[in-house]
């Protein structure tokens, strides 16, 4: 484990959803679970973030927003699709305005289903994302050499 997996800073964006998962993400960040134990900080600033937590589905309106956030994050970065809405569109899939899950806008690294997703699952997903961060960093190094 290098320092990159000891200090994951997250940013959270909620797409088109019932806001259930949105609230669960905030619940996972509260003092009771204390994710700061793992060095997790909710930055609210894409330029400082390593992990993008996406909840809710993608529609025409929020697609550029999500892409903008994604593009502003410095490499290496990981995208998590949290909740069934973000994985596939969920119960909103058939809606006239919904395009589908988060992968319609940005490349997703981990799909975490659940409706609503539980804080434990979110924390577990973030911890798994650390492994991916580590790999991406190694790939960056290899490309640089």
């Amino acid at each position: 484990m290098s320092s990159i997996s000891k200090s994951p800073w997250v940013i959270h964006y909620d797409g088109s959803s019932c806001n259930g998962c949105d609230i669960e993400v905030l619940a996972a960040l509260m003092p009771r679970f204390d994710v700061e134990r793992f060095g997790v900080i909710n930055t609210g600033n894409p330029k400082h973030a390593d992990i993008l937590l996406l909840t809710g589905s993608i529609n025409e309106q929020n697609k550029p927003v999500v892409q903008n956030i994604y593009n502003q994050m410095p490499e290496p970065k990981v995208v998590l699709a949290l909740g069934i809405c973000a994985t596939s569109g969920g119960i909103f899939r058939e809606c006239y305005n919904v395009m589908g899950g988060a992968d319609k806008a940005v490349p997703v690294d981990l799909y975490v289903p659940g409706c609503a997703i539980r804080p434990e699952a979110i924390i577990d997903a973030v911890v798994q994302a650390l492994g991916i961060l580590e790999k991406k960093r190694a790939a960056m190094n290899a490309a640089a050499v």
Partner: protein
Amino acid sequence: MSLFTAILYVVLAPLVGGLISGLDRKISARMQGRIGPPILQPFYDVGKLFKKENLVVRRSQNMFMTFFVILSVFTGALFFAGGDLLLVIFALTLAGVFFVLGGYKSSSPYSFIGAQRETLQMMSYEPAIIIVAVAMFMVTGSFQVKDIVSYPRPLIMDLPGVFIAFLFILPIKFRKSPFDLATSHHAHQEIVKGITTEFSGRTLALIEIAHWYEYVFVLGVGYLFFANSVWVGLLMTFLIFELLLIIDNATARVRWQWMLVGSWGMAFLAGGVNIIFLMMRGYP
């Protein structure tokens, strides 16, 4: 007190400052009923930032921050070398100016607001710092830090009012509540991140390290008030730091008007009255 201590500062201050910052996060977490991150967490954060991509709006914004870092180190080094207190204050101000300019240079609305507030903060703490220097001169008869340290009596005996004025502005320099207007370490989502909004990767890491240098320097100024005995000085410095954490966790952010009026009021009331007493007593 010489070149040797200055070099010692340049080498050790990041370590000490990082530990201070880690302790701060741990103790704050405990005060809030959390477990908190490991003490070494700030080092992990900075280590990670060095490994990240360095995105910029303009390349020149990083240059300003580099100057900020260099001047922060210079400020502390001059202080720990036993140099002139007034020169130290000039260097401190210049470092702050570069920090603000870097924020303006990155031309994002968030860093603009952050830079404006940082300027207000500098305006707030400047009088108190100058009063500290002047009052120390009036007691010891010298602006040289090395003479102030070797003064036989603890300065706090002569300068209680000045010390209170200094305590009042301490949260500004540590970027802590109630004066964490420009960029805060705890309320992570307000005005996004203030001045540092547009900085990432290596530059952000350097800014963090510069803050560590500043922590050690500011605590060093606190130490001067008790400098006649090393152990009492260190103990009191630690207590000052503890007090800072308690204030940080017990207060909410104030509006900038309150910060300005409060710190100027404190500087001129507590510090000014103290100085008037010194003048009446006569000084060397």
